């Protein structure tokens, strides 16, 4: 490949500036603040502070609540990612088969993605809140003991469904695009050889969708890890009894409710390490093993 030389020495840097400024202001600066804060102990108002070394990290890692929160996060993220991807794939394959009004279905299915997480949370809360929710009344009337305010598993189910629902549209879009990229000739050839719908799907369509699926798996896990704060905040507030307190929610709760800023910053540093690890994993292993052609 021929190397390209720009005649102007300044222009390339100038063109890069906006991106660099954004990254520095919105990523490097807050990240450095978190690192700095994580080795301090400070009163809520920031009037007095002192260096405590790694004491905050030691306190977190020896706290059983933190390990519990880690477990909650793993369960929540996997369930959310798998549920939203499974439903999206089902909808995408069904949308492929529809002939009339295909675009209308697609547009409608994309709508939930435009809903803000907190609002999505409120929507589900209004339906399933035990004090005023319509569906809560129906469930109870039919003899189902619905009480997510006390039952941790029910609360977890509720936030998983709300979080997955919001992400279905995004996954749907990518699956539709992925399906369109699969050559029709392959499927037709298999059909001529006598392969039925399910067989065609599992032996041809699903493997060829692998790049999309892996990409979505990472995106969805990251989404469930970090972008579902609004939903959890609106629906359960991390309760009952910490049953839905994910790591991100715990950072907020310890920092802004319990006013332990050092401990909260240390937790976000640990989260930062998790994200870096996830991303590195994605680039190193997942990307290499997936066929893109």
């Amino acid at each position, binding site marked *: 490949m021929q190397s390209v030389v720009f005649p102007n020495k300044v222009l390339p840097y100038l063109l890069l500036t906006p991106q660099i400024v954004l990254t520095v202001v919105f990523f490097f600066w807050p990240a450095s603040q978190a690192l700095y804060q994580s080795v301090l102990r400070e009163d809520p*108002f920031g009037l007095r502070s002192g260096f405590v070394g790694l004491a905050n990290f030691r*306190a977190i890692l020896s706290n059983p609540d933190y390990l519990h929160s880690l477990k909650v996060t793993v369960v929540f993220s996997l369930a959310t990612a798998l549920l939203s991807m499974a439903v999206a794939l089902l909808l995408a394959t069904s949308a492929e088969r529809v002939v009339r009004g295909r675009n209308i279905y697609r547009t409608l299915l994309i709508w939930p993605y435009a809903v803000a997480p907190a609002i999505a949370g409120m929507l589900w809360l209004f339906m399933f809140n035990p004090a005023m929710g319509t569906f809560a009344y129906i469930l109870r009337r039919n003899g189902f003991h619905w009480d997510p*305010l006390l039952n941790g598993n029910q609360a977890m189910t509720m936030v998983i469904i709300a979080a997955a629902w919001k992400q279905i549209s995004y996954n749907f879009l990518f699956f539709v695009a992925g399906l369109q990229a699969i050559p029709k000739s392959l499927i037709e050839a298999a059909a001529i050889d006598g392969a039925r719908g399910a067989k065609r799907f599992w032996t041809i369509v699903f493997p060829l969708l692998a790049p999309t699926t892996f990409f979505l798996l990472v995106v969805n896990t990251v989404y469930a890890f970090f972008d579902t704060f609004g939903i959890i905040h609106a629906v359960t507030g991390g309760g009952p*009894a910490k049953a839905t307190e994910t790591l991100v929610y715990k950072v907020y709760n310890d920092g802004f409710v319990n006013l332990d800023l050092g401990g909260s910053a240390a937790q976000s540093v640990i989260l930062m390490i998790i994200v870096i690890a996830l991303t590195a994993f994605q680039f190193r292993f997942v990307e290499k093993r997936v066929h893109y052609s």
Partner: protein
Amino acid sequence: MTRFTWTLAATSALSFFAASNAFAATELAWWHAMTGANNEAVEQLAKEFNESQSEYKVVPVYKGSYPEALNAGIAAFRAKQAPAILQVFDAGSGVMLGAEGAMMPVADVLQKGGYEFKKDDYLPGIVAYYSKPDGTMLSFPFNSSSPILYYNKDAFKKAGLDAENPPKTWPEVFEAARKIKTSGAANCGFTSTWLTWIQTENFAAWNNVPYGTNENGLAGLDVELKIDAPIYVDHFQAIADLSKDGTFRYGGRTSEAKQLFMSGECAILTESSGGLGDIVKSGVNYGVGQLPYYEGHGPQNTIPGGASLWVFAGKSDAEYKGIAEFFHFLSRTDIQVRLHEVSGYLPVTMAAYEETKKSGFYDKNPGRETPIQQMMGKAPTENSKGVRLVNLPQVRDILNEEFEAMLAGQKDAKAALTEGVQKANAAIAAAIGK
């Protein structure tokens, strides 16, 4: 070209500044956490104050629930964007008290506006609660409340209970709740808002048993909780037992359970007297009674709840003057009387209390004097002056988690309270840097 642009920008900025100065009064942001009927009261007060003079303009801003408003205020202070007035709930008082230098005591604020803060004008229990150990009053007591019992008269009649005499002791409440449930008069017998504030903090004061060491934190920061004593264990076990068949229903950590009472779902509710405005609006045929107690322990006196208004240090003199004017306006007898009558919050001045009494309001509205009598009835003991912890909101969260696990049937009351006390003590020790 550049110079021209600068001049133009400077001129337009100047003229804009001058123009806005000529028309707008000094704005005083008031961050609060009032919803429903109480939010209307806040808006109404600000409107009346703004219309009564033209120099200052109070702008109320709703900042979410009580804990959220406190956190918003703290975050704003750290970002040097603090509002003029911040409403902080009872449990946050200890947090604010720890921020020496960040706040201006209410007496100093009033002095800046040429007024004098006379402690004797205010209800003594409230003054004690919002003062430093040396007696300096720190915040302006805006909305003070005390927990009372609300009951649904229609459900009581249906269940064959005496609709004019609400149950007085906890065993009577539990008995009535069971009758309501079994007779089908309501889906649930009893519920309570704020389990921590009502069933532990006020429970301690009202039954004259310690909540924690060091006079529940009023005599010193170093506190160990005592709410795993047998009287608490028995009380919470009774509630846990009732919740098994739905006789007791849990609504949430703050005031959510009020909805269960207003919708007719639950027939008995313990809730702040400040919830009265919404309950009146809901149209439930309600009655009120004293907070229940245990025979042989209570009734002693309840401790003030609700919230007070805090003023940050480092504002301009003009702002302090405006805030002083506003506080003076709020403490006016006619304003206090009205606030008390529409919202159920206590009148914070003695004059307003006397005035309401004289007007015959309490004769026409039996039960409305209950929250004041509960608080003023007896001289407080070391168990009943109040509860003050540097991290009371956090301690409440820890206890709420234990109560939720208990009500879900994961543990009994003894285990929940023992573990709650252990975790809370560790959190207090960490918060005071021990």
